[in-house]
C-alpha cells in the first residue's frame, strides 16, 4: 500500500520526504530575475544552440497542413565544438488535396538528404570532406524534395524555409511565404527571406500598399512553391547567426496575423524559448487563428 501511495499520493502525504524547517523560505526566482541572470553575459562554452518550437491547427481550419522539424547537436573536432542545427518549416497548400502530405514529404526528404551528407561528421569517427558547399547541399536537398513532392503528392504544393546552422553561420533555403526572421540583441528585427507571394510582389512593385496587401483577397497566392512547376528557383543565402539574438522560422499563420512588433516583444520578453513559442501561437489564435500556426525559435549561445 505504501508503494502505491508513493506512486500516486500527493506530496504532502509522503512521510518519506524530510521535513523542512519552517524558518527557511525558498521563493522561486521570478522570471525577471532569471532573465537578468541569463543576460549577465555568461559565455557559453562550448557554443550551443537552444531551440523552442510549437504548432497549432488554429481556430478555423480542421486539418494541420504545416510541418516542422528541429534537429540540434554539436560536432566536436579539431576546430573545437561546433553547434549544428537543422530547422525546417513547411506550409502545405490549403486548397490542395495533399497539402499535409506535401509539407511532410518535403521536410522528410530534405532533412534526410542533409543528414546523409553530414552523416560522417555526426556519427562516424572518420570524417571525409564534404564535396559540396553548404549552399549546394541546400540547393540539392530542395531539388530532391521537389522531385519527391511532384511524385508523391501531385497537384499539391508547399512552402519550405530551411535553416542549416553550422558553427556561427546559417545557410537558409527558401521557397514560398513562410519566413525566417533574425531578432538582434539590440532590438532590431529583419526578415531574412522574401515572400514569393503575389501580393508581396505587387507591394514591391508599388501596385498596392502594405495595408492593402494585408487584407488582399489573393494574399495566399504564391508564385513559387515546392511541387509547383518543373523549374524551381529557391532563394539560398548564408549569413552569420545574429550574435546573442534569435532566429524565428514561422508559417504565415503566425506572421500574417501577429505584427512584427508583437513578435519581437513576445520573443524578447519570453521566459524561455518554448514559452515564447507558445505565446506566439497563443497570440495568433487570439487574433482569430485563421490558419495553421508553426514556429521554431532558435538562439545561439556563444
Amino acid at each position, binding site marked *: 500500500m505504501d508503494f502505491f501511495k508513493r506512486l500516486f499520493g500527493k506530496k504532502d502525504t509522503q512521510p518519506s520526504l524530510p521535513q523542512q524547517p519552517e524558518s527557511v523560505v525558498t521563493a522561486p526566482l521570478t522570471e525577471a530575475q532569471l532573465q537578468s541572470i541569463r543576460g549577465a553575459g555568461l559565455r557559453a562554452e562550448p557554443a550551443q544552440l537552444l531551440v523552442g518550437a510549437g504548432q497549432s491547427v488554429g481556430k478555423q481550419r480542421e486539418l494541420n497542413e504545416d510541418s516542422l522539424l528541429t534537429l540540434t547537436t554539436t560536432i566536436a*573536432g579539431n576546430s*573545437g565544438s561546433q553547434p549544428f542545427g537543422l530547422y525546417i518549416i513547411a506550409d502545405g497548400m490549403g486548397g490542395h488535396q495533399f497539402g499535409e502530405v506535401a509539407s511532410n514529404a518535403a521536410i522528410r526528404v530534405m532533412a534526410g538528404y542533409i543528414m546523409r551528407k553530414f552523416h560522417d561528421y555526426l556519427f562516424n569517427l572518420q570524417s571525409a*570532406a564534404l564535396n559540396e*558547399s*553548404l549552399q549546394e547541399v541546400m540547393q540539392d536537398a530542395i531539388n530532391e524534395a521537389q522531385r519527391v513532392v511532384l511524385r508523391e503528392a501531385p497537384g499539391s504544393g508547399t512552402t519550405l524555409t530551411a535553416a542549416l546552422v*553550422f*558553427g556561427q*553561420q546559417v545557410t537558409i533555403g527558401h521557397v514560398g511565404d513562410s519566413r525566417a526572421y533574425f531578432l538582434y540583441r539590440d532590438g532590431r528585427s529583419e526578415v531574412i527571406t522574401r515572400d514569393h507571394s503575389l501580393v508581396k510582389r505587387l507591394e514591391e*512593385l*508599388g501596385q498596392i500598399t502594405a495595408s492593402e496587401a494585408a487584407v488582399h483577397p489573393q494574399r495566399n497566392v504564391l508564385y513559387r512553391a515546392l511541387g509547383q512547376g518543373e523549374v524551381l528557383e529557391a532563394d539560398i543565402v548564408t549569413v552569420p547567426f545574429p550574435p546573442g539574438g534569435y532566429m524565428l522560422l514561422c508559417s504565415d499563420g503566425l506572421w500574417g496575423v501577429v505584427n512584427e512588433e508583437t513578435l519581437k516583444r513576445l520573443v524578447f520578453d519570453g521566459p524561455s524559448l518554448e514559452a515564447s513559442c507558445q505565446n506566439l501561437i497563443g497570440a495568433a489564435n487570439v487574433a482569430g487563428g485563421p490558419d495553421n500556426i508553426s514556429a521554431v525559435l532558435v538562439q545561439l549561445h556563444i
Partner: protein
Amino acid sequence: MQLGTTLANRYLIQDVIGVGGMGSVYRARDLHFPNVVKLVAVKEMINQAADAATRLTIVQNFEREANILATLHHTAIPRIYDYFTQNNHSFLVLELVNGKDLESILSEADGFFEEDQVVGWAIELCDVLAYLHNHKPEPIIFRDMKPSNVMINASGHVVLVDFGIAKPFQTGQKGTMIGTEGYSPPEQYRGEASIAADIYALGATLHHLLTRRDPRLEAPFSFNERPIRKINPGVSADLEMIINTALQYNAEDRFKNIDAFKESLVGLARKTGLLSRLGTTAIQSSSAIKPLWTFQCEDELRGTPLVYNGMVYTGCYDNNLYALNAADGKFAWKYPTDGGVVTRPAAFEGNIYIGSQDHRLHTINARSGKVAWTYYTEGPIHSSPRIAENHAFFGSDDKYLHAVNLGTGRASWRFETSAEIWSTPFVTENLVIVGNENGDFYALDFRSSMKWRFQAKRGITASPVVQDRVVYFTALDGMVYALDINNGFVLWRFRMDKPSIVSPCVQDGMVFAGSADNNIYALDARTAKEIWRFRTEHQVSGSPIIYKDALYCGAADGKLYCLEYRTGRLRWKFETKGPITGAPVAFDDIIYFGSTDHFIYALMA
C-alpha cells in the same frame, strides 16, 4: 572672401561658384598637390548669429554635415576632404562637381525633358537615396530633395548636394521642420521626416521636371490637381502612375521604400529599352590621366607596393627593395638581395620586412635602408610576410609556413605543408590561414596546431581574406571559395571560366575577384550570385582593391582599371607597357602600383 586668398595654407580660392544663405561656395585649388591641378569646392559658412547659443548650434549643424558626409561613399555624393573653422568662418572642403544643378538646367531648357532622360536621373536618385536610407547604424533622410539640390555632372550622372539638413533618422522622433516648401510631404510639415518623405519629395521633383510647373508657386500638396499628362502629353501613363504613387497624400499609400520606387522605374525603363542604354557613360580616356610621378626600376615589378610613413616601398625582379618618397617619387635608397623580389613588403615599428627568391626574409631599417637581420628558409620566397603578434608569418618554396619572432629573428615554429606556398597568410585573432600550390588550405592556431584543413581541386596561389568570419580566396580550379573560418566548411563556391590567382577583396557585402577568363567579378557575399562582371582585354592577373567608391585592378593587358565598385561601370583605365600582376595600394587619394614594364606609378584616385 577675396579671390586669391589661401585658406589653411592649402586651398587657393579661385572663383565663386555659388551663394547660399550662410555664405558662398568657392572653387579652390589644393596646393598639397603641386604637380597636378586638384580642384575642390570650398563651402564657407559665416556665423553671424548674435547670441552664443545660436552660434553654437550653427557650428554644430555644420560639423554634423561634415561628419555625415565623411561616412558616405557613393558616386552620387560629393566626397569630403577636409573641414575647419577660422574665427567666425567654417569651411567644408568637398569634391568639386563639374556640372549644373537641375533647376538651372530646367530653366535653361526650351521645352519638356525627354521621358527617358528624367527616368534615367530618377533611377540614379533612387540609387543614392537607397544608399542613404540603408545607412547603418541609422538611416539618413535627405529631407531636401529638390531640383536645385541635384547636380548633373560632366558625364551626365546625378550628384546630390547640400547635406545641410540631412540628419540621421531615429524612428518616431519628431524633428524641426526644415524641408523645402513645395517639395515636402504633408507629414514633414508636422515635423516628421521619414523615408516616405524622401519618396514624396523625389516624386515632387520628378513632377516638376516633367511638367515645368514649380510646386513652390502652387498650393501645397496639389500635385494631383495638375496631372502630368494633362500638362505634358509626351509622358507615358506608366510613369505618371509611378510618380502619382510617390506623391500620395498619406505616407502609407506611397511606395513602401525607395527600392520599390526604383524597381517600378527600372521596370518601365526595361520596357522602353532605356535600361540597356543607361549603361553607356562617358569614360575618361586614359590619355587624360597623368601620373603624379613614375619611377623606373631595372626589371619587372611583379608584386604589390607598400606605403609607410610617407614612403613607398616596392620589391623588384632586379633583386632590390626600393624606397621612394610617396609624394614625388624621389629615390631614397635601395637594398639589394640576392634574388628577385616579388613579395609585398610589410612594415612594423620602423622596419621593413620582405622575402626574396634568395631564400631569405630580410629585415631592413625603413629610414636608412640598412639590414638588421635576415632569416633563411630552404627555398625561394614568393609568399609575402604578414606581421601579427610580434611575428612574421610567411610561406616558402621549402613547403613550410614560417613563424619568425621579430624580436629574435628566429623561427618560433615551422609548419610543413604538402607543397610550395606562394599564397600570403592571413592572420585572425586566433588563426593563421594560408593556401599552397597543391590546393591545400590550412588553418593553424598560434602554436602551429592545425584546426582544420580544406582541399581545392588545384593550387591556391591567391591570398585569403577574412570578413565577418568567412574566408574568401580563389584557386587555380577557377573557383571563388567562401569558407567558414570556424570549421573550414565551404559555405559557397562560385565558378569562373578560367583559373585564378587573384586575391579577392570584400566590401559592403560584395566579394571582388578576377580570373584568367579576362573578367573582374563582383559577387554577393551572402548568396554567391554575380552582381556584375567587367571584361578586360586580357587575363586578370592583378588583385583588386577598393578605395572609397571605386575598385582598382590591374590586368595582363597592362591596364589599371578604375571601376565604380557597386555597378562595375568603367570610370577610367590607365595603360602601362607590361602586364600588371600585383595589387595597387591606395593612400591619401593616391593609387600606387607597379607594372612589369619596370615602372612604379602614382595616380590620383
